[in-house]
């Protein structure tokens, strides 16, 4: 469980996060939604410690991040898997090497054991036959899947995904969403996902936090998001006609 209390983050003069509090529970897929530029990535990077909020606390199962010393921070980070918005694969390494990297760095497993685990997670993200390619030689969607494989290879306790399915075809996007939800339940991971994808919201939104202008405007589940009359949420989520109709149909039932 991750609990954030009143975090504020500025860059220079502009305040991006203006006091956000919420709780992300373990074993659930927690979604952060909001318009482009609303501060989703900044929030996620604050959870990761890449950005340091000026105000507020973040606690990982009781461990308050800002109170940890740098060794304890690194220790905590080995329990975190992160999928970056731009994949952030190491471009001098092959797909296999990228995925096996956290294992090579932080376990004493031998090559064979690492390779087995790598093969296993690559198969889980439905990526076969690209083991020895470099990131520059595979498509953006494939890169994303490699990045997910890398994020989960070490059985993380916390998994953060910045737009896991942007740039993917609908099939693969659903596959990735389901994959994330499955492993979240299976291993009781605290998962936090940034997304603008309404399909994901409807499919896997067990808890949804809606950010607007650096503030938490609304939070709830995917069922509640159908019923809410919060204008900002309705404007954002139901901006497409299709989802408007879905909502109307849902409300009629």
């Amino acid at each position, binding site marked *: 469980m991750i609990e954030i209390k009143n975090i504020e983050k500025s860059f220079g003069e502009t305040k991006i996060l203006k006091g956000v509090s919420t709780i992300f529970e373990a074993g659930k897929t927690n979604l952060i939604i909001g318009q482009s530029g609303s501060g989703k990535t900044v929030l996620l*990077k604050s959870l*990761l*410690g*890449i950005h340091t909020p000026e105000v507020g606390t973040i606690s990982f199962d009781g461990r308050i991040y800002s109170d940890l010393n*740098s*060794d304890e921070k*690194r*220790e*905590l*980070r*080995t329990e*975190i898997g*992160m999928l*970056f*918005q*731009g994949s*952030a*694969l*190491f*471009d001098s390494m092959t797909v296999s090497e990228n995925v096996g*990297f*956290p294992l*090579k*760095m*932080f376990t004493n497993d031998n090559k064979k054991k690492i390779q087995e685990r790598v093969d296993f997670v690559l198969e889980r993200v439905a990526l076969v036959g690209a083991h020895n390619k470099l990131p520059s030689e595979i498509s953006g969607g494939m890169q994303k899947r490699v990045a997910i494989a890398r994020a989960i290879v070490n059985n993380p306790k916390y998994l953060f995904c910045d737009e896991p399915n942007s740039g993917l075809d609908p099939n693969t996007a659903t596959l990735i969403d389901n994959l994330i939800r499955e492993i979240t339940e299976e291993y009781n991971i605290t998962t936090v996902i940034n997304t603008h994808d309404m399909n994901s919201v409807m499919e896997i939104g067990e808890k949804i936090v809606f950010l607007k202008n650096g503030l938490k405007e609304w939070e709830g589940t995917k069922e509640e998001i159908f019923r809410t009359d919060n204008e900002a949420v309705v404007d954002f989520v139901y901006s497409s006609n299709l989802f408007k109709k879905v909502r109307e149909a849902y409300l009629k039932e």
Partner: protein
Amino acid sequence: MLLRYLSQIGKYFLMWKEIFSKQTKWSVMRGLIFKEIDDLIIDSLGIVAFISFFVGGVVSIQTALNLNNPLIPKTLIGYATRESVILEFAPTFISVIMAGKMGSFITSSIGSMRVTEQIDALEVMGVNSLNYLVFPKLIAVLLYPFVIGISMFLGVFGGYIAAVYGGFGASSDFIDGLQINFEPFHVTYAFIKTFIFGILLASIPAFHGYYMKGGALEVGKASTVAFVWTSVLIILVNYILTQLLLT
């Protein structure tokens, strides 16, 4: 302005502290070191050899052409070539060239990892990214004096070839010249400089790459800035060391 420089300098020294805190495990680090030796040292040998040989030749020819007075012995050609190659040309001039070659390679490779969030990815995994990226480079440049040793040898050799085969002096004159007033401490001095230049060559471009902000365009700018600072510092440190060690 001054404050900004001071804070940069502070950050530079903090970087050093961070590089040596929490080491990457040796089985991984060993591979990284070999890769850096290949990229930074082995890859530089060709261009260093080329420049050294020909500039050594030019130094020798220039000296020969200025010897119009018959009272000055021909051995001066060998002597002057030795002194200028060992004292300045090989350690300093080559290092400034390396600030361009090695330096821009370091800044752009680390900088592009910064802009594509690869450094963030390392940090998030719990890797000490400064140690992972910079430490192997610092170990690799410990071999940099070896490069300069080759440069010294080839510079003098180039001078010899130019003098003898260009018809400016006899082989024996040149070789006698090489031995006049030979001060072993000059070689020591040259290698002390080289060692320090090597450390500057790896650490300053790494600093500029690691702490850069922005996108691909800024990677190019950071490389240029790193080159300017590295060469300025090499020249300044050269002056200070010469003052300290030779006077």
